């Protein structure tokens, strides 16, 4: 799979070239990001997907300017986000993966602190209203629900009307209704020209929102493009169960691959309509009843799962296969 090419239009807002990030040194060191290239154009919503420990947050932190890259270059709005932090920060908004607000301050007080540290801030009440927290302004942060805290975090990221918005798992912990309204809000911001880079592990979130996306695994971008491009060369799938006495053997289906597991049959095909027509024709001709028949086009979820398992089988050189959750916590933690 190729990675996204840097745009030649020169209107890219985020430009990442051969990014590496290494934590610690020697045997305890960990190479979290291994040569990532990304380009996000102005006004685009770009989603970074990946399994746990794929390097999404490590990549985001470098692009946000929270940490220096070990190797490679990062440009946000044409500048180095780490070295030229003072120039970049007034033009971007960042929402981290978790919290970061004192529990004893109210939502409005939190907003006031951030307004004092943000150039051209919106009125605090307006920012809270945007994320549906207007009625909770006087409530202390520790008394807000997890979802409300995520929305407060989003409100703070939006306070300075940023040109570029970084959202690290924005809808984790939200109930379906709140998630839908966050999506609506993000879409509106995009419609107004805000460039958005978000990480998520909700595939439907990427499918709903993203203009383009990249799937990361083992610190590398495994595939990228529009949703349609990413799933384009993924096969569609037909599954069914044969009756106990089929009376006829399965036909040869052109361009399809048949897998048998007892009576359960899985057919993978690049041409769903043709294969399904052939299959159903065969079934009618021989009077075979296909139980639990299911036919579906390739989805982002299928593509994602396939990529994750393929990549796990052929790990990149000296890269650990998808680290388990505890290992990741320790490794990431060593950089803190």
């Amino acid at each position, binding site marked *: 799979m190729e990675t996204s090419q840097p745009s030649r239009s020169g209107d890219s807002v985020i430009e990442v070239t051969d990014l590496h990030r290494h934590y610690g040194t020697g045997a305890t060191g960990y190479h979290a990001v291994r040569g990532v290239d990304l380009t996000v154009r102005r006004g685009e919503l770009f989603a970074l997907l990946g399994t746990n420990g794929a390097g999404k947050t490590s990549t985001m932190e470098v692009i*946000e300017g*929270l940490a220096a890259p070990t190797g490679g270059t990062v440009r946000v709005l044409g500048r180095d986000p780490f070295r030229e*932090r*003072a120039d970049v*920060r*007034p033009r971007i908004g*960042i929402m*981290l993966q*978790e*919290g*970061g*607000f*004192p*529990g*004893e*301050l109210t939502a409005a*007080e*939190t907003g*006031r*602190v*951030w*307004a*004092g*540290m*943000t*150039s*051209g*801030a*919106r*009125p605090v009440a*307006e920012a809270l*209203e*945007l*994320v*549906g927290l207007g009625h909770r302004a006087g409530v202390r942060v520790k008394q807000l629900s997890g979802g409300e805290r995520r929305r407060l975090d989003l409100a703070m990221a939006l306070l300075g*009307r940023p040109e570029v918005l970084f959202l690290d798992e924005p809808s984790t912990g939200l109930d379906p209704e709140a998630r839908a*309204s966050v999506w*609506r*809000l993000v879409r*509106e*911001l995009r419609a*107004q020209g805000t460039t958005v880079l978000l990480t998520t592990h909700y595939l439907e979130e990427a499918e709903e929102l993203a203009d383009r996306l990249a799937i990361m695994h083992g610190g590398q971008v495994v595939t990228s493009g529009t949703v349609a491009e990413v799933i384009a060369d993924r096969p569609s799938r037909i599954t069914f169960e044969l009756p106990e006495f089929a009376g006829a053997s399965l036909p040869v289906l052109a361009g399809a691959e048949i897998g048998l597991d007892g009576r359960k049959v899985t057919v993978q095909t690049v041409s769903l309509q043709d294969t399904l027509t052939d299959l159903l024709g065969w079934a009618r001709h021989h009077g075979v009843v296909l139980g639990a028949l299911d036919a579906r086009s390739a989805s982002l979820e299928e593509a994602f799962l396939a990529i994750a398992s393929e990549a796990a089988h052929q790990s990149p050189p000296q890269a650990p296969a998808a680290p388990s959750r505890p290992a990741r*916590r*320790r490794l*990431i*933690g060593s950089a*803190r």
Partner: protein
Amino acid sequence: MTTAVPTATTAGPRSTTVRRLLALGRAEATLLVRNRTALFTALVLPLLLIVTLHSTLSKEAESNPGLDVDSLLVYGAVGMILAFVVYYNLTAAYVGRRGELVLKRLRTGEARDIEILLGTAVPSLALGLMMAALIGIGGSLGLHLAVPVNPLLMLIGLVLALATMIALAALSSAFTKTVESAGITTLPAILVMQLGSGLFVPLEVMPTQLADICRLLPTTPAFQLIRIGWFGTDGSAPATDFLGSWGAAGSHLITGAVWLGLAVWGAVRYFHWEPRR
């Protein structure tokens, strides 16, 4: 949630260093007022210590007839307030904000690192200075202490003491996991200040060699500068006038600056912005 994102509403002013420090300081002050433990440590503990200080000094005066108990009481009290209200309080504040990931979140904004650290220190500094001024001026008037010999030197000593305390607080926070354990991790430095920097035990009542060692401790020079500026002597020589006090201050200025440099270096080297897991 509302459906439309407003595009043309009023926008706030440009963020400046002063606005950022004030915003952070205000938030931190609100948090201090809402935290009973911290407020107690900041307001009541130093006052309790002053009572202890008075009885300790009175006992020492019995075996050292020349000891000026009143002067040392006021001076020691000012020192203890700075130690508790600034050093201890600020260590706990850094650890608390780090644990809540507040420091990490603040670093995603426009504030520079040094502004985040100083902004968090604003209420501790303000409260410490206010209490020190209250006790210093009130004590001087009430106990009829002499007018300071060299106020400029006192100011230099005060600034040096505060800067060293902030750097030490940042450094101590690196070795403190929870707010609760700040009481233990700050104890060594607090004890050194109480016993070794001439606050509880004046250096002149110590054996000469011990006193010489104590003069080299991190916080001794700053406190001794305040004392020389105030009384014209650190107790090791007869009191001098304004000009003479500069001579007496020379060595303390050098050791104090060296310690400040080391404390800042240590803070930069070891301070971390988010919890280690």
